[in-house]
């Protein structure tokens, strides 16, 4: 799906210094409720999957059926938007390259995640390059957990993408302009992006890019319905 990669929200990284997040690193997408964090994360997942990389979707709130149904809905919208008729090859990529690890009823802990990733690698030969972690509550999670997750990223040579929920009424930011609730964690994240609704679409802004905080031209406009890059 070359067409997709050319309009994927991850295209914003073309404007970053290294153009990827990279193994061992953490990336986060900050947005208010209802702006489309999960949809955007799933687009990041598609970007990886269609590049024939393996991906693990870690869900901390929803069961695998719900996750699969999110992917299904976004996938169909994508096919429609890109006018793809024969999707056989993409369906196969999606089936073979995606795995969901769900942790429901507060079952998530780091040791479990590590054991699960080890099982995937050793038992199934499934070696992901990316982890998508959806539903981690940044307000309630201790800094140590993120430090440990960074170690997990290093140990398994994966890049990990998170979504973080911000609030309209909390305007706190770090010195470098990183918004709540990532403002005190910005040293742990290699890429920080913000999703903001605007009048002409949804804007994906690159707030932190590896070592740089101010990213010139680091903003991209997305279609509010499909989350595909418009610029």
């Amino acid at each position, binding site marked *: 799906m070359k067409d997709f990669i050319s309009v994927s929200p991850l295209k914003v990284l073309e404007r970053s210094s290294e153009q990827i997040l990279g193994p061992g690193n953490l990336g986060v997408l900050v947005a208010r409720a209802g702006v489309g964090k999960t949809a955007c994360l799933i687009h990041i997942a598609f970007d990886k999957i269609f590049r024939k990389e393996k991906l693990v979707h870690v869900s901390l709130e929803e069961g695998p059926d719900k996750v699969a149904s999110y992917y299904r809905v976004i996938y169909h919208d994508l096919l429609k938007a890109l006018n793809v008729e024969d999707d056989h090859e993409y369906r196969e990529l999606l089936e073979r390259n995606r795995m969901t690890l769900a942790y*429901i009823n507060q079952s998530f802990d780091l040791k479990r995640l590590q054991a*699960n990733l080890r099982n995937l690698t050793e038992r199934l030969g499934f070696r992901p390059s990316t982890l998508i972690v959806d539903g981690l509550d940044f307000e309630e999670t201790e800094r140590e957990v993120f430090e440990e997750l960074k170690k997990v990223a290093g140990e398994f040579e994966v890049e990990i993408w998170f979504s973080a929920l911000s609030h309209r009424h909390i305007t706190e930011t770090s010195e470098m302009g990183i918004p709540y609730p990532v403002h005190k964690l910005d040293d742990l994240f290699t890429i920080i992006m913000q999703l903001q609704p605007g009048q002409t679409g949804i804007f994906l802004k690159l707030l932190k890019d590896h070592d740089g905080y101010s990213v010139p031209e680091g903003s991209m406009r997305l279609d509010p319905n499909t989350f595909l890059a418009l610029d």
Partner: protein
Amino acid sequence: MDEIRKLRNIGISAHIDSGKTTLTERILYFTKRIFAIHEVKGKDGVGATMDSMELEKERGITIASAATHCEWKGHRINIIDTPGHVDFTIEVERALRVMDGAVLILCSVGGVQSQSITVDRQMKRYEVPRIAFINKCDRAGADPYKVVDQLREKLGHNAVFMQIPIGLESELSGIVDLVSMKALYFEGPNGDEVRTGEIPPSMVDEAMLKREELLDAASMFSDDLMEAILEENPTPDLIHEAVRNGTVSRHLTPVFLGSAYKNIGVQAVLDGINRYLPSPPDVKNAALDIDRDEAEVPLETDPDKPVVALAFKLEVTPYGQLTYLRIYQGSIGKGDDITLTRTGRKIKVGRLVRMHAEQMEDLTSAKAGDIVALFGVDCYSGDTFTSGGLNYTMSSMFVPEPVISLSISPEDNKSQTNMSKALNRFVREDPTFRSYVDQESGETIISGMGELHLEVYVERMKREFSARVTTGMPQVAYREAITRRADFDYTHKKQTGGSGQFGRVTGFMEPSEESAYEFVNQIKGGVIPTEYIPAVDKGFQSCLNKGAALGFPVVGMKVTINDGKSHSVDSSELAFTQAAIGAFKQAYIKARPVILEPVMKVSVEGPSEFQGSIMGSINQRRGLITSSTEDGDFTTIDAEVPLAEMFGYATVLRSLTQGRAEFTMEFLKYSRVPRSLSEELKANLRGKSRGEKKS
């Protein structure tokens, strides 16, 4: 009408070993239909009353659904007992079809397990409102709170406690009713006497909190209750009405709890059935009018309208065939004439009975909404009966295609006769069970939904029909499908004296995802006369039973004919059928056929420590793991696995996990067999056919 409103047709569905047979037994005891209590795996050798088949009694599981009747506080309740094992899906689905509501039993230790998910999914499909009963609260490790969370998380129910337990595990002594805010204790030798008392002081705060949750959830379904809550006066009647509205509309699942074995909480479940589950008129039912192209016709639970009834279950008894009927509309009386829609044959109603497991009560008539049984009626399961000239059929049930087959042969002459009788009976009882004679090998083949499904029928043959049979290895139902378009242009010509045979067909075949077979006629100018077109279609269809690649049935093919030729004297239907057969053979191999195999959706659940071993075992079976879900100490692994690789998996899983994991599977789709295996399959089949020729 008031009488119908006090009728409940309910099912009791659950995971195997959750205690549904025990609950049913206790219900029958408390409603005074039986006068003694037995255990399921009866130490007293009697067995629970609802387990009507010998085999079930021995295994301690329920296979066939049986309907039984009881009365509780002025309400009549028909209970349809349903099997918990997923291999008997058709039994469950058929029972769900005729019930208006259900009690979903969950084990307070095991919680929502994979089979509960399958059964719940089936209930959703048939839109059955349900209440939940968390059983076995007296067992070590009982945690009803966790189970309610699982009901919400895993099954998506808006579950709400109607009660909370007083003590748990061995300390379980009663329940607190959150509507009346009273403690209920079940006293006397069998818990017959319900004593009401004050809530233990240590539980008052928790009870208040849970009642708040109940009121919050229930008030969504009643404005009156919402107002009463604001005025701080929610009466029990208002709460009951709101919970009933929520339950009937399938937006709320009231949760009861207790221990059927210890006789705690059963009477409260009966009250719940009366209060919250729908009566027949509360449920919409429809039939299909055969005369109007199967247009849907709503049915009314009105005893004065013409009869529409569905035969949902057949049973052989020592007195003859017993047919269980759900009457949707009208009334049936002894001596009445009713029509079997499928054949148009009129049947006189002889003996009409109401069943209580293996005992029966004779009736003179039965009305819309009721479930009764007829004696001596020759029909199939799923047949519709009507009166007054109605040509209706109840909408056809979802019947999956069998995915597994095996050969059976009788060991002696007597068994041969008995085997035929048994097969004849089973085919009528269960649409997912098929039987036929393979024309090439002459063997009798039975096919069904899984290994256990067929195993049970083989055992029933031995036990109920004294047919001793030997079985072959299970065989997977492979299919063939073409992968590309191929053209044909075939002329069938024969001149052997007298009138000859001539027919030419031209066109193409191509893969179709829409249907198993599609025939498109694009002939213009009558080059093939219209009267011969059906013969061409018939010729192509005759080739579908056995594909030329490996002899498996062909699916997913669209055939288009666009040209041809006929002869004024020598053309005939036979000639065009032969021409189509020739055309099929000409194009089929060019269309690159591949072999398809059934792939099952498999769900394995076990303690998390076994995740790696379970994943490995699935991976070895060409399985594609789609997800792994951690919930407490348990992991559920969902995968897609070819059926051919699942034989004997139960044993492997048991030994891998010390018997602590279990799995369910159901048919998902047909998928292409990998090339290497396809070659192996071809070689095996060739070897087999050479062997047969030699012998």
